[in-house]
């Protein structure tokens, strides 16, 4: 018996292929955007896990120097002789094409077998690995970035990106360092061994990381992407909800007939569930394919973002697990269930003789307006509670989510009031009918308009954030890039000659020397500056003690960047503990956009005194009267500097800005996709409504309005509703932008940006939304204008 029932139910779709296409489109778009974002997140997390496995020693404790410095070889020998089972590790960065790669040097003969490194390197490779010119191991992509080491590199597919694995001697040679960065501690140690404090008091045992630091650091970014995916998913579900609900309602006569013919309500519901499941599987499968393509297209930009914002390296190619595919199908099923639950519930409780009232079903949602307004108030209250009583990134997202949900739920009520006002102002009969009819259409379109509001508000909000960031970043770059030329000398022995050469050719030569170190438990950079007025004139200080630069020059304090200050709660005059066991006062806090790390600025003498191993090869040169090109040529000739060691300010700025643009490319792409889905939602709703509009339009036609006029009015209605929605979305988007800049950004990245307004961008978005609504409205309007008069006349012949 189930066969004929299913055949009867499914035949609905055969007769309405457009409705089926709409439903599948909504489902696949929702699934695609969600699973695409999840694919990106999964790939990034996989890369973090691989990197953490290699870098973190697979859960082993480590010995490190308490002052963050290198461990001498002698200390290692002392510990081994005393019975400590330790294995040395060298860890540092090497310049490569497109950035830096991490060099990890290990001792194959002592490395504990529990580490990821040991698992990565086949024992048969050991003989080739050891020695000064031993083999270097890297992933194929990383190997390709090191053409100078081509002869020594061997590609290993499974190795984490951006890491080169080497024998400890090779690593020391490549990084030009002596000693070890840290030492692995074997999990099982001899019981009777001397105390660590008696052998090497400068060392401490660092327990294995309990969580993946990189993963934790980048969680905010992925949470951001997930929020966007969720928003797009919700917008897509608006289409599904509309299509499924209408299909249920249109089939009420069939359901009633089936009940009259002896099919139980339970069997009907089961058949409908089966039908929905099939549709979810088909739509989900299509969505997963589209999601995969989308993720593959966006991943390079996401990788650039993660590298730019957090210094995290992510594979550029997608390798997804079966779990992701299953997740995509699962979310399609959950989405379909969520969109259809209400309709199914109503059918399960439907009396056998319930009449079919598709129009009434559409209008019934109008009664929900009051409840929606109440829901909006609850969401707003939740948002306010989150920001008042909560804290952290999750509270920030609850605030944003609650605010957006409240705005969307409140939209129909506000639109209805605006239309009522317009109706009062209009005097002509056509105008009065137009507004009254528009108000009557509102419930049927409200879900699509809510989706449009969310998409537009997200667009305004994120667009304002990115544009504010761009404007601030650009100004900040101008301040921060005080030098006209940036030079890296090849040999530190050349420095005296270099300085002498520049003495009368430049206004200032500013060393850009720094060490990578751990400050207050997290990776950081410590820079040195000379005493020069150019810093006082340009450095972007957010807050500072009076006479800051003199205090710095006198060695009476340090500057810290905003992210370090926010992370550690540092204020002016606080004491800042630094590697090597010394402290200094915070005399200023400066903005440092886009830097994932904490940063400290000290006088150059203090830097070199405390950290004599500092890399001294980088300099900035202030050139008089825009004479950069001539000086570049002279420096190249005099010191034989290759092109990659001398750059002018313009090139650095261009490079930084290109990284910035790439960083936000993914956000822009998701923005456009969400808007496109909202446009499709409006189109499908308008087309759906158009199929049921004849009973409302036929009397007006009979009273003398031409079909063309009716078509024009339908088109105008779509534009008016889109324009009103855009007008309401604008303030919502601006509040969202403020939340992103003042709350989410601070929690996620550690810096706060000033908000700028860009009315031209809004005008462009307004035109775009009108264009989308126009495109969505033109087809139903055209169909109405071309409708045969007999169709309209038939409305009256059905009257009894």
């Amino acid at each position, binding site marked *: *018996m189930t*066969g*004929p*029932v299913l*055949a*009867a139910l499914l*035949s*609905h779709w*055969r*007769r*309405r292929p457009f409705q089926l296409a709409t439903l599948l489109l909504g489902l696949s778009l929702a699934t695609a955007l969600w699973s695409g974002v999840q694919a990106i997140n999964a790939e990034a997390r996989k890369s973090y896990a691989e990197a953490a496995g290699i870098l973190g020693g697979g859960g082993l404790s480590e010995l490190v120097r308490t002052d963050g410095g290198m461990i001498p070889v002698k200390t290692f020998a002392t510990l081994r002789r005393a019975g400590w089972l330790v294995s040395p590790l060298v860890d540092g960065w090497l310049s490569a094409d497109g950035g830096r790669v991490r060099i990890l040097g290990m001792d194959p003969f002592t490395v504990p077998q529990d580490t990821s490194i040991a698992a990565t390197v086949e024992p048969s490779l050991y003989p080739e690995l050891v020695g000064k010119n031993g083999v270097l191991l890297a992933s194929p992509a990383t190997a390709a970035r090191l053409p100078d080491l081509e002869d020594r590199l061997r590609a290993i597919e499974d190795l984490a990106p951006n890491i080169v694995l080497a024998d400890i001697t090779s690593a020391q040679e490549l990084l030009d360092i002596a000693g070890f960065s840290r030492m692995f501690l074997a999990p099982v140690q001899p019981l009777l061994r001397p105390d660590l404090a008696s052998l090497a008091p400068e060392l401490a045992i660092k327990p294995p990381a309990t969580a993946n630091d990189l993963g934790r650091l980048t969680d905010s970014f992925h949470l951001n992407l997930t929020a966007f995916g969720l928003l797009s998913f919700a917008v897509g579900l608006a289409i599904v909800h509309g299509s499924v609900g209408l299909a249920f309602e249109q089939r009420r*006569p*069939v359901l*009633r*007939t089936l*009940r*009259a*013919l*002896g*099919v*139980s*309500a*339970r*069997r009907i519901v089961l058949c409908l569930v089966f039908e929905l499941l099939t549709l979810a599987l088909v739509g989900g499968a299509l969505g997963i394919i589209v999601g995969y393509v989308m993720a593959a297209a966006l991943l390079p930009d996401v990788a650039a973002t993660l590298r730019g914002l957090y210094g995290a390296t992510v594979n550029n190619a997608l390798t997804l697990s079966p779990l992701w595919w299953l997740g995509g199908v699962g979310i399609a099923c959950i989405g379909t269930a969520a969109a259809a639950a209400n309709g199914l519930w109503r059918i399960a409780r439907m009396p*056998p*003789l319930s009449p079919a009232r598709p129009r009434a079903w559409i209008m019934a949602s109008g009664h929900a307006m009051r409840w929606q307004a109440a829901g909006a108030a609850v969401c707003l209250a939740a948002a306010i509670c989150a920001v008042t009583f909560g804290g952290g990134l999750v509270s920030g997202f609850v605030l944003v989510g609650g605010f957006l949900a409240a705005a969307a739920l409140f939209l129909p009520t506000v639109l209805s009031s605006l239309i009522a006002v317009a109706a009062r102002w209009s005097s002509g009969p056509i105008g009065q009918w137009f507004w009254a009819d528009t108000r009557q259409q509102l419930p049927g379109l409200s879900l699509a308009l809510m989706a449009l509001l969310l998409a537009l508000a997200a667009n305004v909000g994120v667009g304002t954030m990115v544009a504010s960031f761009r404007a601030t970043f650009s100004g900040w770059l101008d301040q921060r890039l005080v030098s006209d030329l940036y030079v890296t000398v090849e040999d530190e022995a050349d420095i005296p000659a270099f300085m002498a050469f520049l003495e009368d050719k430049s206004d200032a030569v500013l060393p850009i020397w720094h060490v990578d170190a751990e400050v207050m438990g997290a990776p950081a950079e410590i820079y040195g500056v000379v005493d020069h007025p150019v810093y006082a004139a340009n450095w972007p200080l957010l807050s500072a003690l009076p006479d800051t630069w003199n205090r710095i020059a006198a060695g009476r304090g340090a500057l810290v960047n905003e992210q370090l200050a926010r992370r550690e709660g540092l204020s002016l005059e606080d004491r800042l503990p630094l590697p090597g066991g010394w402290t200094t006062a915070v005399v200023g806090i400066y903005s440092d956009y886009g830097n994932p790390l904490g940063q400290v600025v000290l006088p150059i003498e203090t830097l070199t005194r405390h950290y004599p191993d500092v890399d001294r090869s980088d300099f900035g040169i202030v050139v008089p009267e825009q004479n950069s090109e001539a000086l570049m040529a002279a420096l190249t000739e005099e010191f034989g500097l290759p092109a990659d060691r001398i750059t002018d300010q313009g090139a650095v700025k261009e490079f930084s800005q290109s990284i910035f643009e790439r960083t936000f490319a993914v956000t822009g792409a998701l923005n456009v996709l969400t808007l496109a889905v909202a446009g499709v939602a409006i189109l499908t709703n308008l087309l759906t409504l158009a199929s049921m509009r004849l009973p409302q339009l036929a009397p007006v036609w009979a009273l003398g309005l031409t079909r063309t006029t009716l078509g024009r009015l339908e088109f105008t209605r779509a534009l008016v509703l889109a324009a009103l929605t855009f007008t309401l979305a604008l303030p919502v988007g601006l509040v969202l932008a403020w939340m992103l800049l003042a709350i989410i950004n601070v929690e996620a990245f550690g810096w706060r940006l000033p908000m700028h307004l860009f009315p031209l961008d809004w005008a462009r978005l307004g035109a775009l939304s009108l264009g989308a609504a126009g495109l969505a409205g033109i087809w139903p309007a055209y169909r109405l204008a071309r409708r045969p008069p007999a169709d309209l006349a038939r409305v009256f012949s059905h009257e*009894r």
Partner: protein
Amino acid sequence: MLLDVHGLRKAFPGSERQITVLDGVSLSLDAGDVVALTGESGSGKSTLLHIIAGLEPTDDGSVLFDGEDICLMDDGGRAALRRNSISIVFQQFNLIPSLNVRQNLVFHARLAGRAASVDLPALATSLGLADHLEKFPEDLSGGEQQRVAIGRAVASEPKLVLADEPTGNLDEDTGQAVYDLLLALARRTGAALLIATHSMRLAGAADRRMHLSHGKLTE
């Protein structure tokens, strides 16, 4: 006895007080009986048929079909009864719009598991629908749609056919033709037929006539 309705009561809530449409209605039908049920609009004819079909609950009384009380059956039991033993012909036809004539005709028989015994060409010819089998309901006139509905009802070989104003939407000639067809098919299959109509002329062709007025049924 095929159908024994006894003491049926049914009231609907009105704006001020309950409106009683069936007030202790009793009737009985044997296999092959053709009974016309007349009454004014709103007299409760449809309600009575709906209760007999198990589509609506009753306030009081019993409806014994083949000795079993429909009022005591659960939803599944009533659905099985309609599937296997009772067919309904509605005034509004209630065809499945997305199935063509051929599929609509055999639909009920398929639900009842009796599709194999349906002689579709003969049925279609007797209904005058042989040339319309591939058409969809929206392509047919009202009379043609009602003929499909009648064909669907009798093709499932029910013991009882309930017809609720089957000619109410048709002009006089078409209505007469449809009515004649319904009677002929019911007599041919041996099914009992309870037909609600307010046309006294059509009712005259039935074996018995019953009149429903003010909730009371009189013969």
